[in-house]
C-alpha cells in the first residue's frame, strides 16, 4: 500500500498512535543536537534543521526549507530503546537461606519509532540476530522489540560521515519497517509513504492522503539515488573481512592507538555494538541482590579482565578488537557485518578517528605489498 502525504499528515500519524496509547519516539532538537525523545506532536520534529558532521564534530544549522527529516543520524540510536543503557535483569532475594529470582513485570506499552533511517533499520536487524536470533535470547530486548513499531524514513541528505551505500544498508530501506516515508522537498513539500506490514498499512489507511502515482515513486527513487551518488563508495566491504584478519599485527594499530582515547564513545554511539556487563548491587538489608545489565565496551580494561589482569591491556589491542569485530569477525560470529555505515563512531569520536581511514590505511600497505 502506497500513498502521498502532505506534511500535515505527520501530525495525523502522531495523533493516531497516541490515541492508541502508544509512545511515539522521534527526533527532536535538544542540547544542540538531534536526539530521540517522546513527542506529543509532529511540531516537535526538527523542522528546518540540518546537521553538519565531520570527524569529531557536529553542528546544527538552519535549512532554507521546512524539511522534517533534513538531517542524518545524531548522537543517539534506537539501541537506547531496545537494548536499554541499563536495566535490571532480575532481582535475587534471599528467603530463609534459599534464593528466589524475581523478574520485573514486562512493559507492555507499544512504542512507535518515528523517523528510523535505513542504516538504523539495518542496525536493528543486526541486533535482532545477535540478541534474539541465536540459541539464547535476551528477554528484555525481545519484549521491547516486540512492542516496537518502525516508521522508517529514507535518506535524501547523507552527512559527511555517512557511508551506508558502501555497506549496502541505505540510503533506501529495503525491509524491516512497518511504514516508510520518503520526503520530497523540491516543489510542493510532500511525502511518499509505503507500508511494509499489515500494521503499517492499517496506520496508513487512517491518514489523510492522495493516491501515489508512478511518477511519485520515481520521484522518491530519485531522492535516494541522489543520496547514494553523493556518498559514493568509501569502504570496500567485499574484501574487508580477509583484509583485516590478514593484518592483525599491522603497524597502523600503533598509529591509531596514539590517537585513540579508549573512551568508548564509538562503541556506545554505535547502533549495533551490543556488549553489556552484568553487575550485582545489594540492597541495604543485604537480603536482595539486583543483577543489573548495562552497556559495556571493548575499549575498557575491565571488559576483558580475568582474575590476574586484563586480556587487552593496550589501547592498540582494544582498537583492533573493535575494528576487526565490526568489519570482520562479526561476520564469523553472526553471519553479517557489524557496521551499517551510519558514521556515528566517526562523528562522536572526541578526536575524530575515522573507521574508513583506518581500513584504507591498512589496505594501502597491503596493496603496496602485493
Amino acid at each position, binding site marked *: 500500500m502506497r500513498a502521498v502525504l502532505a506534511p500535515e499528515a505527520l501530525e495525523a500519524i502522531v495523533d493516531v498512535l497516541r490515541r492508541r496509547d502508544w509512545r511515539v519516539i522521534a527526533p527532536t532538537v535538544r542540547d544542540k543536537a538531534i536526539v530521540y525523545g517522546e513527542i506529543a506532536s509532529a511540531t516537535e520534529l526538527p523542522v528546518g534543521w540540518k546537521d553538519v558532521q565531520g570527524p569529531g564534530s557536529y553542528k546544527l544549522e538552519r535549512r532554507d526549507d521546512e524539511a522534517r527529516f533534513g538531517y542524518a543520524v*545524531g548522537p*543517539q540510536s534506537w539501541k537506547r530503546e531496545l537494548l536499554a543503557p541499563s536495566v535490571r535483569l532480575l532481582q535475587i532475594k534471599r528467603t530463609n537461606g534459599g534464593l528466589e529470582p524475581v523478574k520485573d513485570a514486562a512493559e507492555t506499552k507499544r512504542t512507535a519509532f518515528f523517523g528510523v533511517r535505513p542504516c538504523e533499520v539495518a542496525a536493528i536487524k543486526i541486533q535482532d540476530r545477535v540478541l534474539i536470533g541465536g540459541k539464547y535470547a535476551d528477554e528484555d530486548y525481545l519484549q521491547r522489540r516486540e512492542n516496537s513499531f518502525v516508521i522508517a524514513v529514507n535518506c535524501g541528505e547523507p552527512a559527511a560521515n555517512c557511508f551506508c551505500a558502501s555497506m549496502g544498508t541505505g540510503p533506501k530501506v529495503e525491509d524491516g519497517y512497518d511504514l516508510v516515508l520518503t520526503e520530497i522537498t523540491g516543489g510542493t513539500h510532500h511525502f511518499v509513504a509505503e507500508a511494509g506490514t499489515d500494521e503499517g498499512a492499517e496506520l496508513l489507511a487512517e491518514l489523510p492522503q492522495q493516491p501515489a502515482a508512478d511518477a511519485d515513486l520515481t520521484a522518491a527513487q530519485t531522492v535516494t539515488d541522489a543520496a547514494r551518488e553523493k556518498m559514493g563508495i568509501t569502504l570496500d566491504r567485499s574484501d574487508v573481512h580477509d583484509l583485516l584478519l590478514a593484518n592483525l599485527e599491522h603497524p597502523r594499530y600503533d598509529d591509531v592507538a596514539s590517537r585513540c582515547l579508549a573512551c568508548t564513545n564509538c562503541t556506545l554511539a554505535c547502533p549495533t555494538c551490543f556488549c553489556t556487563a552484568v553487575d550485582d*548491587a545489594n540492597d*541495604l538489608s543485604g537480603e536482595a541482590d539486583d543483577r543489573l545489565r548495562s552497556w559495556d565496551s571493548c575499549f575498557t580494561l575491565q571488559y576483558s579482565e580475568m582474575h590476574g589482569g586484563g586480556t587487552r591491556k593496550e589501547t592498540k589491542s582494544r582498537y583492533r578488537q573493535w575494528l576487526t569485530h565490526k568489519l570482520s569477525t562479526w561476520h564469523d560470529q553472526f553471519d553479517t557485518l557489524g557496521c551499517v555505515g551510519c558514521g556515528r563512531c566517526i562523528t562522536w569520536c572526541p578526536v575524530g578517528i575515522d573507521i574508513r581511514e583506518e581500513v584504507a590505511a591498512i589496505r594501502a600497505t597491503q596493496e603496496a605489498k602485493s
Partner: protein
Amino acid sequence: MGPTIAVWKFSSCDGCQLTLLDCEDELLGILGRVQIAYFPEATRAEIEGPWDLSLVEGSVTTPEEAERIKEIREKSGLVVAIGACATAGGIQALRNWANVKEYASTVYAHPEYLETLETSTPHSDHIAVDLELQGCPISKVQLVDALLAVLAGRRPNVPTSAVCTECKRRQTPCVQVLGTPCLGPVTQAGCGAICPSFARGCYGCFGPKESPNTVSLAKRWSEMGASEDQLLRAFRTFNGYKPAFREESARHGG
C-alpha cells in the same frame, strides 16, 4: 553487631565524609548493619581500635598525618581512601609545585608551628590502600556500593573507564564534539557525567581513568583553540598530582 567503621579526616574540605551523611536514603539502613567506631564529624562517641574498615578522607600534608595514617593502617582490616585528596593529594597538592618551607620561614616568625610538609600526597604513597574511591567529591552511589560490597564480600563496582561511558548511557550529546573541550575521555567514570549534562566540559574531578591518553586529548584541545596555559591548568587542578595528569601538565610548561 556489624563490622566497625572509623572515618578519618586528613587535609580536606570534609566533603567526602559529608557524602556519607548525605546518603539520606541509605544512612539509617547502613547504620543498622555497622558500628560507627569513630566519626567525629557526626558523633562524640568512640570505640577503640582495631577497626574492620577505615574510611580515610584528605591528603597527607603534615608530619602528624604521615604518622597517623600508618597507625590507622596497622589497626584497620580494610583501608578505603575516599576522594581526590586521599587518592591524589587533592587541590592542596598544588603546593607540590611550590616551595612551602622557604616561603613559610620568610613570612612567619615561628614556621615550626606550621608543621606542614612540603607536599600533599595520597595515602597510597604512605601505606597500602585496599580500595580507592576517586572524585572531588566522591560519588554517593559508589560509597554506598562500596560499603554494601564490603558487607557482602563482593567486589565493589568501581569502573575504571572514562566519564564518556556515563555520558553515553545517560544519552548526553558529547559536548566536546559540539565544541566545548572536555576532560571526560581521560577522566574516570563515577560522577554520572554531570558536567556534560550541564553543557560544560568535564574538568577532571574524578581523576585519571586507566590508561588515559592525555597526549591525544591535549592535542585535540589545542586544535580546538586551547592555549598551553589552559592545558596546564586543566590537568593541574583537583587531581593534578596523579602521575598521568602530572605528566601531562608538565608537557605544557611549568
